[in-house]
């Protein structure tokens, strides 16, 4: 199999994040519209100027992307709806980039958003997937907490990672979130607090879990010359991969689909792990961050615990990671959680991250991971993006 075609000539612009809220009386439609409006405003565009739209949301029902076109008054020649949770940002980027590259659309708005009513998380869980209803929720109804507790338990047994190691990731992300105005978590977190908090599903405790919230994220995909013409800061795509239901034979998930395609990703982007200036992992639980640090080639399998012990993961550190706090500290706004890292990475490499800006951020790796269909995350994806304006 040859290398896939390059993603040349496609610009990622106008990253926009709405400030997150713990609970909202507004709908997913409202949150999605807010992010779309924000991105369009950032780019100085009117809604009529986009001709492609890609949306991810858990709580649009009974609507889909189709209902949104009329609700938002958009006339489009390219429309997509991506139900891949934590992988939806990367996948949206991949699909939109090809549409723009091939001329099926000129400007695509990629948006993810969800609301959070009292009890909407419990309701969402109860209908999440057929296999979860059949074979996971009847067992204590622990949802993702219990599922990831099982993976974490196995990971700790296999590789000797400790609670302190996971804590380092969470503590660093909290420190990053304190500089990110949209984050939910506004108080510092110490390793002692992390270790002393109440258990949720052993070995997972309170600060290993994301806080469900309302929020939305958006970015625009357009030809590079369009971004230049409009004088917009932008990012370019070095390479990007996605993979679903990889390693189905593994009895328990200790690696993701990235391992199958990571070499090709670096080859496409013509770089290696050392050239990456910042990493945005999908952080529904810190064990998944460790899995990505390994599977994306930053260290050997099983040595991510040692890696986080020997690196500083904060914005000013030697390995900036989840610079807007990630979901663990910014909050998990449903499907927008799959966009959080990507939108922040676009800001970073286009030099518009403001208070969270990493110095000399030229190359960013972003990974997505999503959808616990039964016992493991099924979707994974990653992208290397680089600064367009340098």
């Amino acid at each position, binding site marked *: 199999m040859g290398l896939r075609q390059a993603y040349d000539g496609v610009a990622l612009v106008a990253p926009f994040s709405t400030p997150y809220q713990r609970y909202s009386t507004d709908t997913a439609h409202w949150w999605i519209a807010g992010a779309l409006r924000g991105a369009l405003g950032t780019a100085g565009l009117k809604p009529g100027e986009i001709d492609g739209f890609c949306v991810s949301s858990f709580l649009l029902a009974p609507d889909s992307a189709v209902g949104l076109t009329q609700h938002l008054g958009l006339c489009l020649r390219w429309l997509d709806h991506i139900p891949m949770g934590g992988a939806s940002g990367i996948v949206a980027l991949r699909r939109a980039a090809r549409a723009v590259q091939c001329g099926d659309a000129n400007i695509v708005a990629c948006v993810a958003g969800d609301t959070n009513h009292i009890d909407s998380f419990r309701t969402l869980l109860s209908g999440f997937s057929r296999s979860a*209803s059949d074979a996971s929720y009847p067992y204590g*109804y*622990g949802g993702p907490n219990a599922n990831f507790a099982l993976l974490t338990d*196995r990971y700790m047994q296999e590789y000797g990672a400790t609670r302190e190691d996971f804590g380092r990731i969470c503590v660093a992300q909290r420190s990053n979130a304190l500089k990110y105005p949209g984050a939910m978590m506004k108080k510092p977190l110490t390793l002692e607090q992390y270790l002393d908090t109440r258990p949720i599903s052993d070995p997972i405790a309170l600060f290993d879990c994301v806080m469900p919230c309302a929020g939305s994220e958006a970015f625009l995909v357009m030809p590079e010359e369009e971004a230049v013409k409009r004088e917009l800061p932008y990012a370019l795509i070095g390479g990007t991969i996605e993979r679903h239901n990889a390693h189905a034979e593994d*009895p328990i998930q200790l690696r993701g689909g990235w391992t199958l395609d990571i070499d090709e990703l670096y080859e496409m982007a013509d770089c290696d792990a050392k050239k990456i200036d910042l990493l945005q992992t999908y952080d529904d639980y810190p064990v998944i961050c460790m899995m990505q640090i390994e599977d994306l080639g930053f260290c050997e399998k099983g040595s991510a615990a040692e890696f986080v012990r020997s690196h500083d993961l904060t914005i000013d550190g030697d390995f900036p990671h989840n610079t807007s706090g990630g979901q663990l500290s910014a909050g998990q706004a449903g499907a927008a959680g799959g966009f959080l890292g990507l939108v922040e990475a676009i800001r970073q490499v286009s030099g518009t991250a403001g208070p969270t800006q990493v110095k000399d951020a030229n190359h960013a790796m972003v990974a997505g991971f999503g959808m616990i269909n039964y016992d493991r995350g099924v979707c994974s994806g990653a992208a290397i993006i680089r600064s367009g304006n340098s």
Partner: protein
Amino acid sequence: MTTPLTPPPKKNPQKRTIAPTRPSEARSRAAMGLSAAAAEGRFALQRCAECDTLQYPPRDVCSACLSPDLSWKDISPEGEILAETTIHAVSKLYFRERVPWRIGTVQLDAGPVVICHLHGDCERNSRVTLINRLDRSGQGVLMALPKEGSLNMEDDPQLRAMTSDPKHRRILITDARNTNTPALARSLLDAGAATVFIGEAENWRPNPMRDELNKMANVHIFPLDVTDTSSVQELAAEIGGKTDIMINNASFIRPGGVLARGDTGFARDEIEVNYLGLMRLAQAFGPGMCSRTADGVNSAVAWVNIFSVYALSNDPEFGCFSASNAAARSLSQNMRADFRSSGLRVMNVYTGPTDDDWHQLVPPPKVAPIALARSVVQGLKDGLEETYCGDVAKDLYQRFQNNPNVLERELTQGGDGP
């Protein structure tokens, strides 16, 4: 070892009775196969007829070859724990009221990896034996038990939540005149039942079973005539609030089918006892029992019906009796539907011909009272919904499953004639 359950204190009538909540009931149609197997206490998974791959979670087609030819097969329940967690915080009320709750990931020797409940005595990464049990929503769930068993293992709170164990419970047996009643009472007391109430119709008549029953400790005989609505209601008013397990063994039986009988007299009696008697009991005791399914150690837990296996397919020698049992079996399905939201389980025990006067002319094997009692107690301990007692019942059920129309022909065909 599990901390043994202690007998509960006397109930404080001023305290609110905890209302029943349930684990999640939603299942796909394919997954209902696991529940159907659990109803009979079988550990079964789907196997592909074309490539032999075992499937889990349940599927509509084989995940190895896409064949739609999947059927539920009993498989080895042995496996090993790969990972575990104890859940402390959860939004579903049923589990929220019962945390900490332990689950694990088990690699089955047969291949699939399953998420399952973990018995408290399972050691980390140990070998386990899986069971498939109905939970309080009435759906099948897998649970890992220590491979070698453990002391008082039936008292583990997660396991007890799946079963109808008689230990520390109060049980009503409805017919003191049935020849199987002493064996039932004795077996239930031996299994740890706190009290056995026994109903006796027309107590002015001599009852050959009475002396034996009176000699047992913790047995109390009350007047009860299941053909008399007031009698049933009176007993429900007296002991309905402390009946944790109902065992309806009241039965009226006479030989003969439609043409062997000249009128509907006996058929009326059969319907009065076997069908309407069950309905009267259900209407009088059902609501109270349903409201007490979360009432601590001696919560209401199960309703047991004892049916002739010919409820499945008519035995012409006892044609009208079979028909009354078929009606009662259908009613039991209705009771299951009505009781389901409370978690009160309906267990039907199907028996072949019993060793009593009315089956004198039936050739052996016949079911002895103690055999029936063992089936009832084991069924309760395993939390079953359906169990078949004796070789005749098991044989008939297998033939019924294979092809009910063939079974009907076999049962109803006459001799070749002259």
